[in-house]
């Protein structure tokens, strides 16, 4: 008998190119997707910068991993959320993003966090 899927949430908090956190986090998320769990992904704080359109890392001499967020759908990871205030503080709207997301308030995000079996920072 298969076990009931666990609710697992990843919380992206760091910008994409200044540290290894988001890159490693995304790897972790993709691997988790293979186990058919109930995965959700929240972008808040500088984490929202991960999914900004038109990022071009060619002059930095690195390949960049941001486009990989587009593959999440292929792993049935479709519960993507962004924090409303984090977007407003950065002058961003959902039109600036490379993947479809739902906009949530911090209160709603807290409620979702509390429903999880596990919450991972990245």
């Amino acid at each position, binding site marked *: 008998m298969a076990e009931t899927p666990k609710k697992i949430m990843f919380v992206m908090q760091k*910008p994409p190119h*200044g540290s290894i956190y988001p890159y490693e986090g995304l790897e972790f998320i993709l691997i988790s997707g293979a186990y058919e769990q109930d995965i959700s992904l929240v972008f808040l704080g500088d984490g929202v910068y991960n999914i*900004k*359109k038109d*990022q*071009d890392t060619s002059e*930095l001499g690195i390949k960049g991993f941001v486009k990989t967020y587009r593959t999440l759908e292929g792993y049935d990871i479709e519960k993507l959320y962004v924090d409303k205030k984090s977007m407003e*503080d*950065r*002058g961003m709207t959902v039109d600036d993003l490379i993947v479809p997301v739902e906009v949530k308030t911090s209160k709603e995000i807290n409620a979702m966090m509390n429903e999880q079996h596990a919450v991972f920072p990245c």
Partner: protein
Amino acid sequence: MLHTINKSPFSSKSLDLVFEFAAAKEPVLLYEDGVYAAQSGTKFEPEIARLLKTNPVYALQADLKARAINNPVNGIKVINYDGFVDLVAEHKVQNWL
């Protein structure tokens, strides 16, 4: 003295420290995650606009492009790596962490 900032203004107090410790006319360079302060429309735009009244502010092109910052705050000078080297060669450097 050249003041450099390489951390996001949302996660670091570097910008406040520059306001406190940089003298008028001393250049300020934003690079790596520091360039998020250069984006127009963020809550830090008024602070950058205020800084630009007293100090030249530079931002590194490669880091702007990597972060899709295509419309920096008016008055910020976008420079490439050669410009970065020129600034460092011309000034003593204080890197705010």
